[in-house]
Structure formats: structure tokens, C-alpha cells
């Protein structure tokens, strides 16, 4: 037993114990969570460089084994670091008024997080995956009816994923005779010449699992529900870290299945032999289109959203689209771009959600048109959001630009040009919803209701400042992450890319991001000098604006009414109304749910179960499992 398993087990135990021991003093549970995050960060540091370290855990029937792979470590290290920052935030967020009892579960979830990234065989992966699914379901629900509805929704979709994962695992085991992830993927690669159908079947099952988790493709709608209804600080974890498990899964199992002949990943086998489009396997090319449309669709929906957490949840889905788009290119550059964008997204979306949580902490409002002018009262939250959206829009000098640029370059490398049109659309249209958030929440008119609110508490500010620094540093010096990522993908056999601390060599051109960062900084300084040269400016009140000579107060217009935020993009909504009305996967799933409910109601008559639909879905999973074993 090494540090890997002991740390996981001890944190899990700590979580369970804290739920019993500190039932009366909930704040201590949050301290336990913080300690767990610190501990995991320490584990991440001490495991650096020990690649290939293995460990196993006897679970009676099976043995779950773990390994410290470079890519897994990177994901683990990053998620631990961001978890640490979020847990600092949570310490302050869960005061007397806002406290929730989810900390023990969250602690267990941190252990599951480590388990997923360290899993060396499918059993360990499945156990960690399930643990993650259950704990996150309970955290999302957190004892509120509305949240429970969202949680059930999330859980039902997770069940689809789990069912597919189970089926995939048993099919893989049947085809290759091993549960070890790396070995089984290698063994599958050798089957391209004999059983391509089986491989496609496995790829589809795994894709469904990971897409369901990452909310890609037809599963785009759960984050909008789950992220919005989850506890505010947990939304940051959900959107920052949890949604990336699917990406990790794709990198772990699906992408290597399509390793090109001649690459290190395909060493010892013939590699992928099927059809290809522009040198990209057909299956991944289709995934690329699904991802591109995920990005576009989520963007269109985000622009229409008035609830700030739902808006940002859709933004997350759109970014997942970008990540999978980069993965689908199936080159070293694409995978590096995807991993880099994943980490960047962890940082900036973490920052954005923490900022939103701060605003909700102070105001209790979630609908954007009821807010406004928060920047004047909560400057640090405002800057966290501002830098976050600059990064999310992929604008220099923040970190989002570097990775978005890499995504585009990855697509250039295989000349997937038509795939880039939706990508560009999503990228440009993202300015719309990001600006909407900035304006409606932080700028515009400050409502008199919130005239006296205080800035974010110190611990929350510290968490946000840490993320801001990370955003800026990675924007100018991407090598801090890209160089390890480069080694990691080389280690995993995907090949390598050309990066240095400040520059990246792309397909069509290369950029030096440190230069871009400094040019912008110096431009700001230069323009500031110009600004100082101009005549003095004086401050006026927010309501003293151009109103064609009218005094708004005479008309009974309050600052709230004067704040333009509701239906912000009305022309756009008019344009996209027909599209949004006709296409709705949500309705499709709703129909399925409806039929399920009808069936389950008849079952519910015999048994007195609560939530029969979920139970039915769960039994369906068992059924599929049995079928899988039989096959």
C-alpha cells in the first residue's frame, strides 16, 4: 500500500467520520474538507516524478489496482489544486446563514476524484466512478426539493452513462481477457483487422458514458439544471472539475483506440485501420461534429439565459465542446490543446463560479436582471469575473486564449476546415453571453436594495485572487502547464509538440504569448499616459445619465427599472426562437421519462417505492449488466 491508496482511503474515512463526529458542528466538517484538499495537494506534490508507481486494493471479489500515470497525475494535481482553492472559498462561504451539510460527502468525492485519475484497471475506475456519481448526486440534492429534482435528472443521465460503462467494461473484458485499462486498450487496438464492429460498439458505449458525464452531444442540458441547483460553492467544483472526468475518460480509453499506425501509442499493433477523413478516423470526425454542435448549441442557449448560474453552466458545455473538438483531431497537438484547455477551464470557470457564489452569498439573487452594479460594491468578485470571462472568451492576455488558439491550430493541422466554422461561431458568440453576465450582474445600475452590501469576505477574496493570478500567469507563460502536458502525452505515447515557456509552435504559425501579454500590458500603460494627459474627469451619480433631459425620478423610474438586463438580446432571441422551438433534446428525454414514469406507476402500485422511475432505471442498469455478462 503506497501513498495513493492510503490517501484515498484515509480521506474517505475522514469524510465518513466527520459526518458522524461533527454532526453538531458543521463548520468543522468544512475544515475537514479543507484538510483533505490540502492533503491531496501534498500527495500530488509527493507523487511527482514517480510515474508507473502501482498499487492495488483487495476488494474481495476483485482487486482494484491503481497507477500513477503522468496524464492521470496532471489531472489529479490540477483538480487537487483547484479543489484546494475552492475549499478555501467554502470555509468562508459556509457561514451560519449559508451552511449546508455536504462537506463530508464532498470529502468522499475528493477521494473518488483521486480514484478516477489513478485507476489502473476498469474495476477501480468503475468503483471510483460510481462513488463520484452517488456522492455528487447527494451533494446536488442537498436536501432541497428543487435541487432534488435537478439531482434526480443528473442521476438518471449518470445512470445511462454507468449502464454504458458497465456494458463496455464487460465487452472489453470479453474481447481482451483483461481488466487493466492500458493493456486492454492496447489489446483492442490489435483487433482492428479482425473485429472492427466490436471495437466501434465499445467506442460508442464508452463515448456515451463520457459524453453523459461531460454533458456533450445530446446530454447538453443537465449542467444547466444541476449546476444551477447545486450549492453555490459546489457549482464551481462541478463545472470546474467534475465535468472533466468525461474528457479524462476519452483521453484514457477512447482516443488511444484510434491510435494512428506508426505512433508510439500503437506500438506493437497495426493501429487504426478504418476509414479516415483528412487523416482523422471517421468515428472521431463524427465526434468532432457532435462536439462542434454542442459548442454552438450551448452558446445559443446561453445567450438566451437569464439565470446567471444556468448561463455559466451552458458556457461550460460550450467549452467542453471545444475540448472534445480538439481531442477528435487525434494528434499530439490536439490532445495537448484539449488537456490545456481542460486545465484552463478548471481555473477560469472555477473563478467565474466562485465570483457568482460570492455575489449570491451577499445578495441571495440568482436572476441577473435583479442584480446589477455589483462591481461598485464587490470589486474583487468583479475582477475575478472579468478576468474569467476574458479567459473564457479566449482573448489574450488570459489563459483561455492560448488553449483556444491551440484548438484552432489543431484543427488546422488536419485541415478540418468545415469543422472550424461552428467552432468560430461558438467562439465569437460566446462574447455575447459573457458580456451579458458582466453587464447584468456587475455593471449598469446598482439597485438600492444592495446599496449597503459589503465586499466579498477575505477568504473568498483570497480564493478568487489565487485563481486570477493563475489565469494571468498561464496566459503569458503557458509553458508552466504545457511543458508537463507535453511530457505527459509523450509518456502516454501520443507524440509531442513544440513548446517553450512562452511560445507555442502551431501548424500555420507560431506565437509568443509572453510577448502578446507584455504588448498588451505596455499598451495599457501607454494609453494610461494618454488618459492622464487629458483634462480632469469628475464623478457623477449613476442615475445622472442622458435621458433626453428627463429626470428619471419624476417618472418614478428606480435604478432597478433603469437597469437594462431582462431579455438583453431581444433581436437575437427573435432570430433563434424558431430554431430553439423545433430542436429540443430535452423534450425528447422528457418523453422517455414520461413513458418511464407511466410504466413505473403501474409497478409502484404493487410496491410502495418512492421515486419509482429512478428505481426502474436502476433496474434497467442491472438488466443490461446481466445481458453484458451473458454476451
Amino acid at each position, binding site marked *: 500500500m503506497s501513498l495513493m491508496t492510503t490517501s484515498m482511503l484515509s480521506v474517505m474515512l475522514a469524510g465518513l467520520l466527520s459526518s458522524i463526529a461533527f454532526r453538531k458542528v458543521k463548520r468543522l466538517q468544512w475544515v475537514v474538507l479543507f484538510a483533505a484538499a490540502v492533503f491531496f495537494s501534498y500527495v500530488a506534490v509527493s507523487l511527482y516524478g514517480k510515474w508507473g508507481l502501482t498499487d492495488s486494493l483487495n476488494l474481495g471479489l476483485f482487486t482494484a489496482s491503481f497507477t500513477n500515470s503522468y496524464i492521470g497525475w496532471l489531472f489529479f494535481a490540477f483538480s487537487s489544486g483547484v479543489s484546494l482553492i475552492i475549499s478555501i472559498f467554502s470555509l468562508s462561504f459556509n457561514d451560519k446563514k449559508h451552511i449546508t451539510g455536504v462537506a463530508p460527502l464532498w470529502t468522499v468525492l475528493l477521494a473518488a476524484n483521486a480514484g478516477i485519475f489513478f485507476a489502473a484497471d476498469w474495476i477501480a475506475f468503475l468503483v471510483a466512478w460510481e462513488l463520484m456519481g452517488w456522492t455528487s448526486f447527494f451533494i446536488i440534492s442537498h436536501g432541497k426539493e428543487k435541487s432534488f429534482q435537478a439531482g434526480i435528472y443528473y442521476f438518471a443521465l449518470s445512470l445511462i452513462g454507468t449502464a454504458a460503462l458497465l456494458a463496455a467494461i464487460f465487452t472489453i473484458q470479453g474481447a481482451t481477457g483483461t481488466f487493466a485499462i492500458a493493456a486492454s486498450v492496447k489489446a483492442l487496438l490489435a483487433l482492428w483487422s479482425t473485429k472492427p464492429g466490436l471495437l466501434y460498439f465499445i467506442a460508442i458505449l464508452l463515448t456515451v458514458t463520457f459524453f453523459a458525464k461531460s454533458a456533450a452531444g445530446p446530454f447538453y442540458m443537465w449542467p444547466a439544471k444541476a449546476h444551477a441547483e447545486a450549492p453555490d460553492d459546489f457549482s464551481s467544483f462541478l463545472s470546474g472539475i467534475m465535468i472533466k472526468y468525461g474528457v479524462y475518460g476519452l483521453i484514457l480509453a477512447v482516443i488511444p483506440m484510434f491510435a494512428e499506425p506508426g505512433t508510439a501509442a500503437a506500438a506493437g499493433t497495426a493501429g487504426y485501420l478504418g476509414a479516415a477523413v483528412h487523416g482523422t478516423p471517421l468515428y472521431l470526425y463524427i465526434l468532432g461534429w457532435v462536439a462542434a454542435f454542442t459548442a454552438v448549441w450551448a452558446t445559443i442557449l446561453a445567450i438566451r439565459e437569464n439565470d446567471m448560474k444556468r448561463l455559466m453552466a451552458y458556457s461550460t458545455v460550450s467549452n467542453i465542446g471545444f475540448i472534445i473538438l480538439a481531442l477528435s483531431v487525434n494528434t499530439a497537438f490536439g490532445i495537448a490543446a484539449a488537456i490545456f484547455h481542460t486545465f484552463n477551464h478548471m481555473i477560469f470557470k472555477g473563478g467565474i463560479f466562485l465570483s457568482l457564489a460570492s455575489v449570491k452569498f451577499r445578495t441571495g439573487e440568482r436572476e441577473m436582471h435583479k442584480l446589477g452594479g455589483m462591481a461598485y460594491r464587490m470589486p474583487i468578485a468583479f475582477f475575478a469575473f472579468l478576468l474569467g470571462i476574458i479567459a473564457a472568451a479566449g482573448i489574450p492576455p488570459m489563459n483561455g486564449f492560448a488553449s483556444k488558439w491551440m484548438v484552432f491550430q489543431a484543427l488546422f493541422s488536419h485541415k478540418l476546415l468545415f469543422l472550424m466554422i461552428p467552432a468560430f461561431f461558438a467562439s465569437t458568440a460566446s462574447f455575447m453571453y459573457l458580456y451579458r453576465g458582466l453587464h447584468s450582474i456587475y455593471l449598469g445600475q446598482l439597485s438600492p436594495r444592495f446599496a449597503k452590501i459589503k465586499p466579498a469576505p477575505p477568504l473568498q477574496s483570497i480564493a478568487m485572487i489565487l485563481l486570477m493570478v493563475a489565469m494571468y500567469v498561464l496566459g503569458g507563460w503557458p509553458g508552466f502547464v504545457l511543458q508537463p502536458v507535453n511530457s505527459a502525452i509523450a509518456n502516454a505515447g501520443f507524440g509531442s509538440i513544440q513548446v517553450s515557456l512562452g511560445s507555442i509552435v502551431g501548424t500555420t504559425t507560431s506565437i509568443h504569448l509572453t510577448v502578446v501579454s507584455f504588448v498588451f500590458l505596455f499598451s495599457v500603460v501607454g494609453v494610461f499616459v494618454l488618459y492622464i494627459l487629458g483634462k480632469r474627469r*469628475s464623478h457623477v451619480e449613476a442615475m445622472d445619465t442622458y435621458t433626453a433631459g428627463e429626470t428619471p425620478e419624476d417618472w418614478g423610474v428606480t435604478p432597478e427599472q433603469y437597469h437594462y438586463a431582462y431579455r438583453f438580446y431581444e433581436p437575437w432571441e427573435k432570430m433563434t426562437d424558431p430554431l430553439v422551438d423545433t430542436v429540443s433534446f430535452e423534450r425528447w428525454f422528457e418523453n422517455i421519462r414520461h413513458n418511464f414514469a407511466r410504466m413505473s406507476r403501474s409497478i409502484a402500485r404493487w410496491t410502495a417505492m418512492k421515486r419509482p422511475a429512478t428505481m426502474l432505471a436502476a433496474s434497467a442498469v442491472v438488466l443490461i449488466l446481466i445481458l453484458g455478462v451473458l454476451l
Partner: protein
Amino acid sequence: MIVLQTIGAAALAMAIGLLFMGIGRIVTARLQRRVGPPVWQCYIDVVKCFSRKSTSHHFVMDLGSIMGLAGLVAAAMFMPVAGWLPLQSTGPLLVILYLMPIGYLGMAMGVSASGNPLAAIGIGRALTMMVGYEVPFAILLLGLVATFGTSSLVALNQLQAGGLLAWNAVRMPFGFVAALIALQAMLAEKPFDAMIAPAEIASGPMVELGGKFLGLAFLQHSVAIFIETGLVVNMFLGGATSIWIFFVKQLVLYTIVMAFNGIYARYRVEQATRFLWIFAGSLAFVQLVINVLK
């Protein structure tokens, strides 16, 4: 030396942009059978703006205005002018396309902080329009990558060397027309000026800007003119061998834009976006298909 070069380049971009604005005003005036202002009118306007006192609603407004101009100036640093660059780079097109939005974001942030709903409406329209013109422009970029395999402006310049027939405007006529339409929208001239619309939303984003804030906005627009016309010159008109020829080409483009500005009425924003997608978008798409097939 590099510092001097960059400051010089920034000043040059502003000076050229303001000169073009003055010429554009004369073009409009001539189209309306007027004499028009002197050619240096815009310089006077900017100096005057900086010489006036101004009002700010919040420090975010100051910050936004500064960020607005700084983003555009930073983008100008990567734009090769007849092959000359203030900083060593390849003229990466994607960097320019993504540095300009930080200017617009800064501007948007600044005017949002003014608290005037008309400003927010204007920005909302501008961003909707942005989706309209950025998509065709991006497709054009893809078309160039399809043919040449590079998105560096310096390389594109070199690839078009050798006379009129080597220009992309001749080799890719559909793309060039799409670029012209997109340019019209990028510069927010009629019929794509719904975001400014003085009679409707009181000049939109600029509604609360006075004094030096307006001066900074003016300079921002001048740099935007310089970059955007420069982009099209570099992408389609073969760059240039000397900076004077480069400026002349830019001026020709800007004159065309202002000529259309003088004779068209204003589209509503959803009409404009749809127009840009349908016409500019499909022209660019046709060009992309041709380039990919070739």
C-alpha cells in the same frame, strides 16, 4: 529602440486612422454635394476632446476606456505594414482577431459602467452584429489556410508577391467581395451601424462618453480602421512593397466603405446579421469550397 518603434507604430496607426476618418468625412460630404470639413478635422476633434473636462460614473468606466484603446493598439503591433512590424512576429492573424475583442470588451465594460441603458442596448447590438461579421471573416481565413496552409500575414504577403494577378482579390473574387461586406460591418458603417444609430439610441455605446473618454473612443475607432483595412490589404490586396502603397490601398478600401456608407440606409440588427450570414457568409463559404477542392 523597440520601445520607440512600438510607440511610433501606435502613433502611426492612430494618425493614419484619423486621416482616413477625415477623408471619409469628405467623401461623404462630396456624395451629399457638400464641401465637407478640412482633411485634418479629426485631429482637431481629438485634441479638443482631450481638452475638455469629462464625467465618469465609476472607475470601471475609466478602466474600460483605457482597456478599449489598449487592446486595439496591442493588436496593431502585430499587423505588418508592407512587411514591416514594430515587433518581431509573423503577423499571426488569429492573434489580431482575438486581440481586437479585448478592446471592444473594454469599451463595452466602460460604457456599461455608465449605467445608461442605451449604451447597453448599443453594445448588445454590436455584439450581435459581431457574430454576423466575424463568422464570414473566419471562413475567409479558413479559405486562405486551405490554399496556403498559413495564417501568418507576413507569409501571406510574400505568397501574393508578383503583380496584380497574384493578388488574392483576383484569385479569390468571392472571398474578396465577402471581405468587403464584412469590412463594412466591422467598421460599423451604414447599413451596419445599428449599434450607433444616433437618432434611435443616441449613439449607443458613446452615449455617456464625453471629453477624453470620447477622445479615447475616437482613437480606438481610428486604430480599428487602420487594423481592419490593413487586414484586408494584407489578406487580399497583396500587401505592399512600400508603406505608402500600403496606405494607398488601405485608403482605397476605406473610400469604398465610406461611399457605401453614404448611400445606404440602416439595417435593423437582426436584418444585418442575417444579411451578413446569408450573403457574406455564403460567398465566403463558396470561396472556401473552391479553395478546398482546388
